[in-house]
């Protein structure tokens, strides 16, 4: 493991801890209105306060959980979907492959954001888990495509032929012969999906189609935008949440590089 990967894992672990303990270590109730209105960062309010005197540091801390939960739930759901579709298509070939590939390409090409905005705003209650499920439905296709290509290159290998010749059932070959060889691809697909899901969730909160009753980094930005934080020069209102998003995204991308380099030795750094 190189430095970049470790850095990524470190940042991810940091946010994971915040997601668990954020609610307890937050100095204030994130929704509680205080007397310091729109004050810049200070010792009492590390990230400053909002127009109604809410503590932004607490909002970011408490909001971490929502972000991480959606990322994790979507990552798991979408990865399972992509394995089912991608590996089946790649292993079976023929008409099943044509149909499943077509399905995943359709999902890839249709612009996800406007579609999800429509779905989310039609749902009577857009809570965190429901949104995670909706995002998963659009997030699996890329992984499926990559897995299909990789599976196709595996299915004619000798060890798979051997398993077939010895009369193994198809599902057994897939689970015990093919899947273990796809671990790196699945892992990098998982990480990529988490990035996608986190970004999408924050975006949906920012445009205001998701329930605003639970905090996440996107809701912080939504309130900043709808209260004209920019025009008021209240940079502290939108900078911390955005930096957290970028940091988390970078951490996940770095982890993904680590996985890529593990899977493709040509990408590893040449030692001088």
């Amino acid at each position, binding site marked *: 493991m190189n430095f970049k990967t470790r850095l990524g894992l470190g940042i991810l672990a940091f946010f994971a801890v915040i997601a668990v303990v954020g609610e307890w270590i937050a100095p204030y109730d994130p929704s509680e209105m205080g007397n310091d209105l729109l004050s810049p960062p200070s010792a009492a309010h590390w990230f400053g306060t909002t127009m109604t005197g809410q503590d932004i540091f607490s909002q970011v801390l408490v909001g971490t959980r929502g972000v991480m939960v959606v990322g994790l739930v979507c990552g798991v759901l979408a990865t399972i979907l992509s394995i089912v579709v991608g590996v089946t298509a790649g292993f079976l070939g023929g008409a099943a492959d044509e149909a499943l590939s077509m399905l995943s390409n359709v999902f890839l090409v*249709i612009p996800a*954001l406007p579609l999800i905005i*429509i779905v989310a705003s039609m749902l009577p209650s857009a809570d965190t888990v429901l949104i995670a499920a909706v995002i998963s439905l659009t997030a699996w296709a890329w992984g499926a495509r990559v897995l299909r290509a990789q599976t196709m290159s595996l299915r004619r290998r000798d060890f798979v032929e051997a398993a077939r010749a010895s009369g193994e059932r198809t599902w057994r070959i897939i689970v015990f012969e093919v899947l273990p060889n796809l671990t790196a691809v699945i892992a990098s697909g998982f990480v990529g999906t988490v990035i996608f899901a986190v970004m999408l969730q924050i*975006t949906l909160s920012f445009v205001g*189609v998701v329930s605003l009753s639970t905090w996440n980094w996107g809701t912080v930005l939504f309130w*900043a935008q709808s209260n004209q934080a920019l025009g008021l020069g209240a940079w502290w209102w939108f900078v911390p949440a955005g930096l957290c998003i970028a940091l988390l995204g*970078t951490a996940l991308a*770095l982890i993904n590089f680590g996985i890529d380099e593990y899977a493709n030795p040509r990408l590893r750094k040449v030692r001088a």
Partner: protein
Amino acid sequence: MTFLLRRAVFYLVTLWAAITANFLLPRLLPGDPVQAMITKLGGRLNSDAMASLYVLFGLDEKKSLWEQYVDYWGALLRGDLGLSFTFFPTPVADVLSQSLPWTLGLVGVTTVIAFVLGTLAGVYAGWKRGSWLDSLIPVTTFLSSIPYFWLGLIAISVFSVTFPLLPASGGYAAGLVPEWSWEFVGSVLEHAVLPGITIVVSSVAGWVLGMRNMMVTVSAEDYVLVARAKGLSQRRIMFAYAARNAVLPSISGFALSLGFIVGGALLVEMVFSYPGLGYVLFQGIGAKDYPLMQGVFLVITLAVLVANLLADVGYLLLDPRTRREG
């Protein structure tokens, strides 16, 4: 030609899927938001408008789903997307045709710039692997991890609020009339700078990384070694041998990531109140304007499909193998 034909069939299927999803969504999801809006608008809707909303959102429960579907297609083919609640009583089709050129201009130009810039940078970074250029990777990763809309917010706060250099919102200065005059075109360009740079900065990193990794992989191929052994110039090997092959995944990826980029660009329009589809969509969300939101979705899907077809033609020109097939 079979290649293009197959792609065209695929795009038609995708378009059908998008339209069918648009048809089914309001019918499947619980609640009757459109009915509520119609009740609210009350007598202000004339009977024609009412009829088309009934067709589009399946409010006429006496008809079977199949009859509704046929009527829906009929309405779409006539270009009837219903009335917008936000811009009442303007038809959705009119709202869209006013905002579409803005989006096509902004997103089209910036996407091409980002793709060309990113790919060139990736060619160099991959060719000069192991040099200081590698240290740029974490920086580009960080840039690509920033949500488009947040970068837009920062750009506004720095270049419009702190240092008032560029306008923060709108597509042209207030008071100007859209026409082909220097004043108007200049104002349009001035207003496009910040949103444009925002889109380029946040989308360029993806192309750099993809291209770099492909260059690294391709540089180890035998034909590159042969080209070196022949004593060809570095430039020629880099572009005609390595880059030409390495760019193929980027181009086929272009098609697939376009939907994602357009999504980000819509957000940039929202942040900058740019008069394109994204801002229209944003206004529609606030007012629960379903006819408008669904119209935006259809138009964007159509635009993305056309752009994909263009990318396929580019792929055909670059990769002779796809041409031989037919």
